[in-house]
């Protein structure tokens, strides 16, 4: 691997994404992508007593599922990169404490999924690992409880607010394709922290869009590619407002992404019937939409070149109460069918 341009890393032995798995909650199961997910839950507790336990169970079962689907013995998985939204990433560390896989807990808010894939692919390309597991989760109820208000409080959600997805995505990266045709990670562009001064925690899309723009443009400049090189440029999760902002901002910088750009937060829910306002958010959103929908599109060669940009809002409830603005971040990976 080698660094190209300002901050992109070209992966010479591009790691294969050999398997993915996704689990989502009941509301996501009513959305337009329901049929692509591996498992849809019937209730948010999933037999557990607390929201936090339920989220841990979601990521645990999803990791078990991706390992089982891949056929790789879990003892052959060298490292695991996982994270979530709860304080100190307890969903991941509690959920994965019995896996016996060396564990890196990572936090990048909603950008965690791609952060994990970036780090995992570097481990593989650098020869430190043969198989790496990446997983994230989020849960609407545990996130509301931690970041906003109790669920029973009779408040109104502003139109710019986003709905935290209950769900998990997991992927196994490997230095071999095990004889199957698999998409590969060819480039990774870690993002910078960008803060344009947005303070409204109910308008995350607007807070994160400048970071996504920065990473997108840097990636295109570093690789010398045009937006049209990609069959799909996918962010997660800017929602409707952030998607709109990113499209317009990119245009002012001379990049037309209107035709091939979409956002996981926009795709996962039906805005009109599900009343999710600006769309979905959370580590589980891009995680489950990539692992469910886009991985299948890649496998079926309906998409061959995908630029996946995960965006995160790096704030917590204390920083919001102290009147701080919301720093945004975006990490990108280029995923391609090379064979």
């Amino acid at each position: 691997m080698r660094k190209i341009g300002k901050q992109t890393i070209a992966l010479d032995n591009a790691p294969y994404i050999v398997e993915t798995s996704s689990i989502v909650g009941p509301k996501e199961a009513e959305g337009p992508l329901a049929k692509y997910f591996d498992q849809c839950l019937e209730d948010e507790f999933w037999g557990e007593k607390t929201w936090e336990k339920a989220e841990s169970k979601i990521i645990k079962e999803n990791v078990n599922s991706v390992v089982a689907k891949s056929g790789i013995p879990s003892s052959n998985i060298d490292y695991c990169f996982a994270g979530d939204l709860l304080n100190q990433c307890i969903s991941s560390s509690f959920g994965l404490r019995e896996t016996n896989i060396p564990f890196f807990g990572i936090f990048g808010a909603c950008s965690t999924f791609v952060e994990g894939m970036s780090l995992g692919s570097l481990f593989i390309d650098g020869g430190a690992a043969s198989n790496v597991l990446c997983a994230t989760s989020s849960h609407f109820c545990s996130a509301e409880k931690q970041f906003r208000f109790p669920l029973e409080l009779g408040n109104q959600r502003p139109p710019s607010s986003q709905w935290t997805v209950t769900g998990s995505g997991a992927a196994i990266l490997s230095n071999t394709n095990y004889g199957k045709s698999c998409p590969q990670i060819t480039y990774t562009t870690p993002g910078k922290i960008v803060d344009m001064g947005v303070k409204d925690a109910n308008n995350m899309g607007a807070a994160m869009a400048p970071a996504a723009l920065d990473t997108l443009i840097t990636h295109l400049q570093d690789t010398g590619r045009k937006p049209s090189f990609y069959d799909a440029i996918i962010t997660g999760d800017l929602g409707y407002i952030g998607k709109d902002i990113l499209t317009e901002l990119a245009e002012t910088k001379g990049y037309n992404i209107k035709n091939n750009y979409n956002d996981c937060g926009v795709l996962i829910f039906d805005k009109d019937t599900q009343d999710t306002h600006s769309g979905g958010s959370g580590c589980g959103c891009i995680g489950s939409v990539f692992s469910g929908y886009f991985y299948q599109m890649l496998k079926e060669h309906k998409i061959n070149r995908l630029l996946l940009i995960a965006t995160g809002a790096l704030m917590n409830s204390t920083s919001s109460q102290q009147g701080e603005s919301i720093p945004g971040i975006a990490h990108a990976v280029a995923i391609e069918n090379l064979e």
Partner: protein
Amino acid sequence: MDFFQSIDWMQLLRCFVVGGLICIIGQILIDKTKLTSARILVIFVTTGVILGGLGIYQYLIDFAGCGATVPLLGFGANLAKGAIQEVQTSGLLGAFIGGVKASAGGIAAAIFFGYIASLIAKPKIKKQ
């Protein structure tokens, strides 16, 4: 005499309109500012205490009855009214006793019912 025949319908209408208008003020605060619901409640209760302390709020209560007492403004006005009344009977000590004494019923009810509800109810997701 039957209870329903004793209802003063004009009084009820005034109550409905005034109560509704106070809520509209709250709704404008929600939609036009970024204030959280906790801040809005604080604004209402504090304004109520000030208006009650100045003796202005009593006119609204006389006019609209529960239309003025049920919104949190009335809760605030009641705190102020209690403090002032208690000061008249027991001096400075009354400033510390009167407010809470006058609204003790509401506060105790909220705490008690809150505790009971937590024993019985289970957290549930909002469907939308």
